[in-house]
């Protein structure tokens, strides 16, 4: 009886091993930013329907993505915060953008409708520093002459978890406010001077919706899906720009990608006249000399297809098209950097 059982177990193990083989071969693994997850899963679904290779992406956060690609456990990592050329050289990594999004200030004030309230960069920094504490502050009243703002303390909402969105928001505030740059700085997790923290973009959106007279910052997709009351922001060219696809495209077009090494550029406060000032990029990290060249080439094929054919999908999910000039620059970068 024992030998019969042993024989059966060996057969079963052999069958399982045989089945395992082909299933794992065509799978491209990635990990990182939660911001890019919706569009990556859409691209992955369409790509595998056409070409068969599947992309397995774990949205564990930008920090997790960087850690996993450094450890070599995934084929690519995704991060909202670019690594410097020095860090990339040291780790042997290449970096390129795949998707652009925007960060929008949202408010919850009775009687204020989407698009009515206006902010400038320094004013946003002052609110988040706790310097401007009340909605009826004279600076806010001067910016919004036609708007009836309540005499109520401002409840600031920020992120409780580490996030690339926070990094780009804090970087922008540091660009427009010297006090912010000195006292707080930029990072995925920073020492917020005031406010409550929500977990994820969803958490910030939920808090802003629940707490009257609050202000928060969320990715553009969340503003659309949750019908939030967004505000427009004063850009560096001197105009109030609403967060729309046109404004984000203008920012992507005027950001100085051509002169950035390894695309190490945080594109907030882009200089164009119609550019929306708070835009963010998600970057993909891959090894220049990968241990598994075939897998790396498969991943590059996937990204080539996504950048060339996947832009309508991205736009449908409220992301921003990469300008064609930038796509060409990225493809030239692949040819020279990734073996």
């Amino acid at each position: 009886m024992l030998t019969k059982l042993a024989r059966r177990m060996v057969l079963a193990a052999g069958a399982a091993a045989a089945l395992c083989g082909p299933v794992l071969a065509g799978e491209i693994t990635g990990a990182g930013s939660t911001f890019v997850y919706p569009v990556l899963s859409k691209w992955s679904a369409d790509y595998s329907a056409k070409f068969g290779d599947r992309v397995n992406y774990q949205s564990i956060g930008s920090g997790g993505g960087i850690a996993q690609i450094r450890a070599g456990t995934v084929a690519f990592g995704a991060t909202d915060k670019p690594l410097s050329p020095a860090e990339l050289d040291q780790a042997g990594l290449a970096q390129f953008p795949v998707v652009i999004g925007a960060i929008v200030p949202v408010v919850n004030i009775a009687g204020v409708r989407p698009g009515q309230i206006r902010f400038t960069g320094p004013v946003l920094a002052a609110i988040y520093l706790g310097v401007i504490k009340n909605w009826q502050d004279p600076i806010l009243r001067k910016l919004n002459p036609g708007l009836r703002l309540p005499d109520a303390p401002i409840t600031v909402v920020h992120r409780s978890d580490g996030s690339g969105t926070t990094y780009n928001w804090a970087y922008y505030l540091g660009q427009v406010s010297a006090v912010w740059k000195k006292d707080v700085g930029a990072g995925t997790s920073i020492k917020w001077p005031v406010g409550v923290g929500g977990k994820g973009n969803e958490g910030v959106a939920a808090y802003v919706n629940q707490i009257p007279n609050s202000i928060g910052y969320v990715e553009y997709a969340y503003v659309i899906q949750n019908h939030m009351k967004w505000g427009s922001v004063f850009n560096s060219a001197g105009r109030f720009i609403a967060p729309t696809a046109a404004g984000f495209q203008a920012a992507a077009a005027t950001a100085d990608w051509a002169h950035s090494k390894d695309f190490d550029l945080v594109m907030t406060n882009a200089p164009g006249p119609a550019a929306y000032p708070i835009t963010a990029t998600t970057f993909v990290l891959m090894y220049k000399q990968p241990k598994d060249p075939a897998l790396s080439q498969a991943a590059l094929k996937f990204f080539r297809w996504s950048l060339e054919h996947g832009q309508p999908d991205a736009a449908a999910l409220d992301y921003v098209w990469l300008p064609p000039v930038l796509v060409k620059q990225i493809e030239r970068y692949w040819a020279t950097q990734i073996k």
Partner: protein
Amino acid sequence: MSVASEAFGGPAHPGRSKDALSSERTHLLGDRLFQGLTGAMAGLVFLVLSGAALAMLLGGMLAFRTFGARFIYSADWDAVNHRFGALVPIYGTIVSSAIAILIALPISFGIAIFLTELAPRWLRGPVGAAVELLAAVPSIIYGMWGLFVFVPFVASNIEPWMSAHLGVLPVIGPLFQGPPIGIGMMTAGIILGIMVIPFITAVMGDVFGAVPRELKESAVALGATTWEVVARVSLPYTRSAVVGAVFLGLGRALGETMAVTFVLGNAHDFSLSLFMPGNSIAAAIANEFTEADSPIYVSSLIALGFLLFVVTFLVLALAKLMLLRLGGAERRGA
């Protein structure tokens, strides 16, 4: 062999058949095996516990070495400049759990007394089942209910009232001052209290039901009211178990993550006021672990976990001490 036979009852019988002797041997072997197996399981628990504590201590060593004792009393949590201090999470954990027990204890006591002494028999089943269902609700549901239903209610009804009536009192005033945003220590404490009620109620209900009827009936025969029976007979009899139940609930409240992170506000700000947001150890680790991008940051979070371990252990040790003293008092006939 004769010892074994005597252990199974009766003197040694040299004339026993071979079958009986070998079955005794297998019984003894089976017993020893069973003992060994269960001993190994108990040992495994101890191994896992000490392994986890050791792993966290080692992981947090960098933080402890860099910051020293300052880690425990500094409120500075700055990831950009690599300065970390655990005061706010520790304070938040302890205060929210204390509020939870303060709220849950009288309510659980009331439910347990109602179920065992006062309720008509047909009501005990449904109420008992409802309390058990409360324990089965996932904690994230409590968090969502807290954020979407309870927080607006607290912000518009409870906090303004408290702020106006209690915020002006001399000593406890600062506890109840601040903008009524609803999210904060008090809301988190209330929700934790609701989560902890089923646990304390279950244990209390069981032990109150186990008080010997003769004791209660003798008290009634001497003229005691229902309340006096509870206060003078049931409670003293079950004192140790009640203390154990409270610490069981406290242990749950200390480690609760998801419900707390929804309604506590996740702000690394130290504030006396119960209306202001704070942070707890479990919520801080859950929020920040995946994006902790520097070794000192990761080490600080692991050190936080170790501190939670220490706090829970201290609470348990306190419970054991109290039980020992109560047990000693009972034995001395107090």
